[in-house]
């Protein structure tokens, strides 16, 4: 083949009488090769081809004359603008969704019979009871870790007993609500987004609407009520197990007995610390449910979308929870609580 590139003649005859069969890819490759000769002005003549394969070669020659369609890449500024617009639109949609949920919640308070208790109880089981084990173990280990770090530093100053204060303030006010909310965001927010997203794709939401059932009333409110009831309880449970873990660490490293630990704990730690943690849990519950359900309703009509929305709901929920936690910290310290 390389020899032919030095061709100086004006006519090239392609004889196919010895070819048994050729498929379209083979013909395409051949035409590709012949194109360089055409471009140099050399005439190509086909000889000995069957009628159908000659037609094939002609079709391919015509097709190769058509340039490849490409989509122009969007310039960076335009892409930036489009992203900004998307973020703006979804923020507005989220606000509108929060409004809808608030209206549905408000109108239900007057009609007691419209609370769907079987669904609420079911959600309490899946979001709450089923999470007890993981919350318990995670908090227990976190209690051990925080106590250990505290112990390490306090030992230098002989201030061992202050580990109780450290655990009381850190775990009850900050870490327990936070770790509980983060774990529940991962579990429940994703589950809600996935459930509602899949229902949207399978036309079940439309089916619900045409039956006169408001999807927010049936899907979002039960989850909201369940999580508002359950997350504070899980936070208290988390408080208990984390303090238990800290107690074990204090006993083994600092020889602070359980009795001594608990006595100091009850004198130094104010009930306010516990209540702040529990109060935060209520807010976190609302954030987790609303974001999870919102992303579910935003699902688009393809398979990728459910996964994307689930991920988005968890990431957003965790981020907002941590951001709110920071805000609360600042506010409470300003209020002197």
């Amino acid at each position, binding site marked *: 083949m390389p020899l032919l590139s030095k061709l100086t003649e004006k006519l090239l005859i392609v004889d196919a009488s010895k070819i048994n069969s050729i498929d379209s890819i083979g013909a395409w490759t051949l035409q590709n090769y012949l194109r360089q000769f055409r471009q140099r002005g050399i005439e190509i003549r086909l000889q000995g081809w069957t009628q159908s394969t000659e037609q094939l070669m002609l079709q391919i020659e015509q097709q190769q004359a058509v340039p490849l369609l490409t989509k122009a890449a969007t310039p960076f500024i335009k892409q930036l603008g489009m992203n900004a617009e998307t973020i703006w639109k979804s923020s507005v949609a989220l606000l509108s969704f929060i409004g809808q949920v608030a209206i549905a919640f408000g109108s239900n308070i007057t009609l007691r019979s419209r609370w769907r208790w079987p669904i609420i109880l079911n959600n309490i089981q899946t979001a709450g009871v089923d999470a007890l084990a993981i919350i318990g173990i995670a908090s227990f280990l976190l209690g051990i870790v925080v106590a250990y770090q505290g112990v390490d530093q306090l030992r230098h100053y002989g201030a061992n007993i202050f580990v109780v204060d450290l655990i009381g303030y850190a775990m009850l006010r900050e870490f327990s609500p936070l770790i509980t909310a983060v774990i529940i965001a991962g579990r429940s927010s994703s589950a809600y987004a996935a459930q509602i997203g899949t229902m949207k794709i*399978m036309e079940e939401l439309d*089916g619900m*609407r045409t*039956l*006169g059932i408001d999807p927010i009333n049936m899907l979002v409110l039960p989850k909201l009520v369940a999580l508002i009831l359950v997350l504070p309880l899980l936070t208290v449970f988390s408080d208990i197990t984390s303090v238990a873990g800290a107690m074990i660490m204090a006993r083994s490293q600092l020889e602070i007995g359980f009795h001594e630990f608990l006595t100091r704990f009850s004198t130094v730690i104010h009930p306010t610390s516990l209540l702040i943690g529990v109060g935060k849990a209520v807010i976190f519950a609302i954030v987790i449910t609303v974001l999870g359900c919102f992303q579910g309703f935003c699902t688009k009509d393809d398979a990728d979308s459910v996964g994307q929305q689930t991920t988005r709901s968890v990431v957003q929920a965790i981020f907002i929870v941590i951001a709110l936690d920071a805000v609360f910290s600042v506010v409470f310290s300003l209020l002197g609580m």
Partner: protein
Amino acid sequence: MPYFLLCSAYWVCDVDTHNDAPKQKNVIEMKQICTSFGDHHVHTNLNLEVRHGEILGVIGDSGSGKSTLLREMMMLHRPDSGSIRVLDVDLATISDQLARDLYQRWGVMFQHGGLFGTLTIRANVGLPLREHTRLDDIVVDNIADWKIKLSGLQPESALLYPQELSGGMLKRASMARALVMDPALLFLDEPTAGLDPSGADGIDQLIMDIHKRYQSTIVMVTHDLDLLWQVTDRVAVLGEGRVLGIGSMLELSAMDHPIIRSYFDGPRGRSAQQQAHVVNQTSSLNI
């Protein structure tokens, strides 16, 4: 005793009072409907009337806005402008209470069933009753099983989940749910799509039975030419953002518009037309 319960069920549901609409009025009136998605105009000044008690087919090419039109009738989508009146209620100014009443007077059969995957067929069919009435669980289950049987399903299907049903059975189950409140108006979205010929035949027959039994008005979006020839009273052809022609299949076959002609001139169109003539002749002979 079960008979007494069923009678009391009818009394509690007020089922019969829904069919007292005056016979002459149109069931659905759509005037000057304009709908667009972004820059794409789907409907431009579209007008459509659905007469009481008729079976109306809605056909049109892909993207002509048939499904959107159906969704607008069902209050799943609001048009940009124009007025829609369904069962004598203006959808633009409808109150929540009127909307709740309206939802109980129609039934919808979705293309892919639209049933809830976490409920059994019996629970799915009984869901409208549980939502809108205060009947006992046992009564609801019994009525659901009865409607499941009327839709041509085996009684055992009542305990299955939607994923466990074949396509034809799913459509019948969806039909059972649409029928559970004895609707005056039925919306069917592609009732025979994806079905084998005998399954589709069964759906044809089911639609005609339902029409005879309940005297409901039926609006169908479909591509199925056989269904159009054999079941519908009138057909509306959608295209270019409006209704290009409306009338019985015979009247449409005489119209000139190229989109309308494509339903009659192609090889499928002609054979469906022939088949309809054969059926009409045999049925008139059987009388």
